[in-house]
């Protein structure tokens, strides 16, 4: 049979394809509906948080930080309750990471504050002596692209039925025309964070109606519970 296949590239290729496709079919198909159900209390990200998440992704924070607490005592002692599948229901993409050069961040919102993040992102060693994390000063004077964040949230709502604008869920709107209202809400949220920060440039920028990356990033990090 193998000799026969080796003279017939078409059937050979079909054979190879069937053999490699098999595992994916068995493993991926059955779980799909199951795993995507949110656990109670899980909410979609607000517009500002999405913008912060885009900043997190833009600078590949996930290259060094995981967001997955494994069910071991040593991990739950350090980072809080272990992660549940449904908590990630609105994470597109998932950000579990594969390497902890720095600590896990899945529940960082539980134990770090806006003030701590501000100092840490400006100069990591000022709060964690010995830290090898780079400083991310550019996030203090570079603004987020809120339109792109809105496009992402709206896509989540339209294509994936993420429950924005439902009772108890964040508000978003239904189309491009609703962007100014959403932008206003994001700015209100940003103002609350800027009020807890001390960097004057950031405060001024928010007062002018801009949203520096650092503000959105902190909003996102604070949302991780």
């Amino acid at each position, binding site marked *: 049979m193998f000799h026969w296949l080796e003279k017939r590239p078409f059937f050979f290729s079909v054979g190879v394809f069937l053999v490699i496709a098999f595992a994916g079919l068995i493993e991926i198909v059955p779980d799909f509906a199951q795993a995507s159900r949110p656990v109670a209390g899980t909410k979609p990200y607000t517009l500002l948080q999405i913008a912060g998440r885009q900043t997190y992704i833009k600078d590949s924070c996930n290259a060094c930080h995981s967001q997955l607490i494994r069910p071991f005592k040593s991990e739950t002692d350090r980072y809080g309750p272990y992660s549940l599948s449904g908590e990630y229901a609105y994470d597109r993409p998932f950000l579990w990471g*594969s390497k902890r050069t720095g600590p896990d961040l899945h529940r960082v919102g539980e134990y770090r504050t806006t003030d701590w993040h501000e100092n840490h992102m400006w100069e990591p060693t000022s709060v964690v002596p010995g830290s090898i994390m780079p400083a991310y000063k550019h996030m203090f004077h570079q603004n987020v692209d809120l339109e792109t964040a809105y496009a992402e949230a709206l896509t989540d709502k339209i294509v994936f039925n993420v429950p924005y604008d439902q009772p108890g869920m964040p508000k978003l709107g239904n*189309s491009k025309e609703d962007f100014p209202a959403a932008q206003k809400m994001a700015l209100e949220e940003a103002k609350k964070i800027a009020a807890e920060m001390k960097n004057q440039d950031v405060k001024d920028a928010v007062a002018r109606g801009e949203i520096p990356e650092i503000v959105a990033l902190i909003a996102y990090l604070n949302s991780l519970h």
Partner: protein
Amino acid sequence: MQNAALEYDYTVSKWFTYLAIIFGIVGMSIGVFIAFELAFPELNNLFGQYGTFSRLRPIHTNVVAFGFTLSGIFGTFYYVSQRVLKVSIAESKFVHGVGKLHFWLYLLLAAWLVVSELLGYTTSKEYAEMEWPLDLLTVVVWVLWGMAMFGLIGMRREKTLYISMWYYIATFLGVAMLYLFNNMEVPTYLVTGMGDWMKSVSMYSGTNDALVQWWYGHNAVAFVFTVPIIAIIYYYLPKESGQPVFSYKLSLLSFWGLMFVYLWAGGHHLIYSTVPDWMQTMGSIFSVILILPSWGSAINMLLTMKGEWNQLKESPLIKFMVLASTFYMLSTLEGPIQAIKSVNALAHFTDWIPGHVHDGTLGWVAFMIIASALHMAPRYYKREIYSRKLMEMQFWIQTTGIVLYFSSMWIAGITQGMMWRAVDQYGNLAYSFIDTVTVLHPYYTIRAIGGTLFVIGLFLWAYNFVKTMQSEKVLEKEPAFASPMGA
């Protein structure tokens, strides 16, 4: 039928080999730089936001995996396929054109990738960081490769496909399937008419996204770092040593076994995560079973040298290839060990994982690409290889580099994993996280030095290659087996 020897056309093969040399140096130099950043964090600030570890790390992995390795694979493909199929690519203007277009679009894609990732465009999914327009271009590039492959196969004079061709075909099909499914994403501009046109959201969320990503991620390793490299060794080692492949049956078993088993193993990246337990166990078990087909190929290669081990002393090219199959055995034993649940609990998220990746990629993948390029050089240019001594030197410098790299990362990984879980006499965690970082400084330094040695070796490789091109001594006919080399 003519009886004259076929004149093969190596144009496209050469172009890809040049690219492999360039991308190897660029990608691994970035790797060395970010390795030094971990040891000396001040370096992160050298180039503002464009020089941080986090921004550069995906560029390192992409340039090395999809720049250096794929170029090396394509370079060998356009060489090996003509020879084992007994057909010259120049016999069909169309197929030759497809090959050339394949090269140029691939180069365009690589440049776009580097620029876009420097600017912060990434989907965040490891080894699938490219945003949707680049994904589409990737599909075009891949289809062109497939057209060239099946075009050559359609024109072939030798009816039976040689083992290397099995593996190239599997690479083409495997990557196509994995890539398409993992990169399913919805461009947000097309849905909403606003925002950055390059951005997209993943079709899957949370745990599902993780599942698809690591089904892809692990098998990108399979179908870029393993399958095509086996294609390479099955051609170049027998050819350079003049020895027939040890066992046809063993190659059959290894090929079909690898195809079936590999795809199951992705789950081992998700052990103790929120994906269902049975999948984690399947990932573990199939990873262990994977030793069989992996070692099957490696042993088949080593036994091909049976009775000819003296060549190991005489030829640095044989040295590279024999050590490559040995490293392949090492990393295909190490991987399954790390996939065992209790070991994974310790090793996951630590530096042992990059350590494992690098003994495979440096020791196996890079060594095979280096050896194949040097085997092809005398055939490309009808000149003998410039210097055996230089090759010997490169071999030892790089081997030392690899040993420094993986041994320091093994120690670092296990140290950190043990410290994360250590408790004092009251059962409280014994170390804060930062303690487990500062302790790694010496190992990070050693790793960076190991990497530097490897890159120095690449420069020797490039120099040797270029000098071979320019050499005065012209060979009268193509060498049948062992590549001729100067002192």
